[in-house]
């Protein structure tokens, strides 16, 4: 009986019910959307780092630090056989050295990164280097990322002078040919990085078979003379950065939920406020407090359920559309965040569920508490519209 009444009351409210449901549904969508975008940002950032640089971890020559360029020269060693023997899809060897470019007669310090061109572990668009022989000729072929090319004012086909030092500290210089300018999804392997063939860089610096690190698909056990660094260590700074961002996202989530909650609270309270006289009438007609409270709670629950349903429907449509477009964050490309492509949502079911649970609870709670309060006061107050003011 109470259910029928509740359904009648709810379904006949018309536009007010529709608005209430829509507002609540949109609030839930906004809350989930916001947090999912951050998740997506994080996931993509990590994925890009892994795809282009980190793989399943690095075996590094002990003491190598990407942030200390002046030490790169000395921190190299011959590649351990056990790593060299791994298939191309499971390891990518790299030698990192310092160099200087002189585009337009200006000095431009660069990281020379020699990478094994046969590796297929990392997703790097370096096909332009493959056609060259193992020995370096008069002209050094190099590939640049778009950003690097922009900064150094170089384009495909340009030549410029490259200076570097070999293992004895002797400075050498030769012409460099930009064979390709490519889009790098990870700005950290774009800006300031000059991609060379590993064998060429080894040849140029007289460091036959030497490397700075070997990226591997998975941990191979301890390797003599090398130090394994896990993915988390290698992307620690990014993780930190994201973790901070995430904290903001979570604070934002709480604020959004809070706002959504207040919105829902407000609508419901107003609803109850307007219906005080009705509550009094129902009690005069002989409904018990429990029945009146049950009636309003049921109505609130119906609104909540419908809101969830609408949110799931609209949300799914919106998210599906968004996933096909993504969020353009090219304006962030100048920063050191290693994401270049559009951000997609990463929806965590836990967050979806907790959002729904919180909003629904608020909705049910505020259709329950004030009515319970009214029915516990004497009904004459409700009849005169004075129970809550």
């Amino acid at each position, binding site marked *: 009986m109470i259910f029928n009444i509740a359904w009648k009351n709810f379904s006949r409210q018309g536009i007010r019910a529709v608005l209430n449901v829509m507002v609540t549904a949109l609030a839930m969508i906004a809350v989930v959307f916001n947090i999912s975008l951050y998740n997506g940002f994080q996931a993509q950032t990590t994925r890009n780092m892994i795809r282009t640089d980190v793989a399943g971890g690095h075996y590094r020559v002990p003491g190598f630090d990407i942030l200390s360029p002046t030490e790169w020269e000395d921190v190299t060693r011959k590649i351990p056989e056990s790593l060299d023997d791994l298939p191309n899809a499971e390891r990518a060897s790299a030698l990192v050295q310092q160099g200087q470019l002189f585009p337009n007669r200006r000095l431009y310090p660069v990281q020379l990164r020699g990478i094994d061109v046969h590796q297929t572990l990392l997703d790097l668009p370096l096909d332009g280097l493959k056609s060259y022989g193992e020995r370096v000729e008069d002209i050094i072929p190099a590939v640049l990322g778009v950003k690097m090319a922009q900064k150094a004012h170089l384009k495909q086909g340009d030549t410029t002078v490259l200076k570097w030092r070999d293992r004895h500290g002797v400075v050498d210089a030769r012409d460099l040919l930009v064979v390709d300018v490519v889009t790098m999804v990870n700005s950290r392997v774009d800006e300031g990085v000059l991609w060379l063939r590993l064998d060429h860089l080894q040849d140029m610096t007289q460091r036959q078979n030497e490397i700075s690190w070997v990226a591997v698909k998975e941990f191979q056990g301890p390797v003599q003379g090398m130090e394994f660094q896990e993915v988390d260590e290698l992307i620690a700074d990014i993780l930190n950065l994201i973790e901070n961002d995430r904290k903001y996202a979570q604070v934002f989530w709480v604020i959004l939920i809070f706002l959504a909650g207040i919105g829902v609270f407000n609508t419901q309270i107003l609803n109850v406020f307007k219906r005080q006289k009705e509550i009094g009438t129902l009690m005069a*007609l002989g409904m*018990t407090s429990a029945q009146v409270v049950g009636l309003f709670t049921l109505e609130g629950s119906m609104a909540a359920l419908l809101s969830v349903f609408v949110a799931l429907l609209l949300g799914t449509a919106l998210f599906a559309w968004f996933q096909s477009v993504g969020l353009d964050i090219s304006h962030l490309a100048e920063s050191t965040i290693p994401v270049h492509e559009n951000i997609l949502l990463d929806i965590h079911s836990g967050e979806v569920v907790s959002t729904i649970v919180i909003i629904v609870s608020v909705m049910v709670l505020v259709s329950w508490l004030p009515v319970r309060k009214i029915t516990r006061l004497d009904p004459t107050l409700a009849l005169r519209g004075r129970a809550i003011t």
Partner: protein
Amino acid sequence: MNNIVSIDKVAKVFRVGDEDFTALHEISLDIEPGAFMSFVGPSGSGKTTLLNLIGGLDQPTSGSVFFKNVKLGELNRTALAEYRRKNLGFIFQTYNLLPVYSVYENILFPLLLDGNKESAVRRSVLDMVDSVGLSDQIKKRPSQLSGGQCQRVAIARALVKKPELILADEPTANLDAENSFQILELMRELNKQFKAAFIFSTHDEKVTKYVNREVGLEDGRVCWDKRRNGSGSFE
């Protein structure tokens, strides 16, 4: 005693801020079954307060209200709700119909609340609609009705479960003279037909012509209690 309502030294004190305000001063009254009577008095004299006490919507500060020997003060909240559901019909000055319900549904409501199936009581609801002359308006919502029509629905809603007591707080205050007379006529009709006791509160002179008994209230005290005698005049 076989009164339907007995009011025994009932006082009601409201606390307003930190002052006490006595709305009723130890009132005693007996009301017989089938009465057709009114409380009259100026605004603030305590008419509504007294009706609320009889309806179990409010509790006296001291004294007791009995409904057929049952002391309302001894009933808990749920029992009071049941008391109202089984025995009382309320008619309000502002009609208080349920806005999303049709005329038919509003009148059906008390019967459903009392646990009846719609199919079982359909007939009596339709008869009731007929008794108040609203057969043409049966599907309309309260917002589509005139004040007089709304009050007819309210009367039908109060009477449909055949209660022994109808409490009507200023039922004609929002109606014009013409409608007031019709409503009063209707209630007197139904009072005879259903044998339900009607207690009004009013400061409407017109009501006097219809009732059989009038209790005058002033400042929370009964100052007169007049009954119509055999020849039709009050004494």
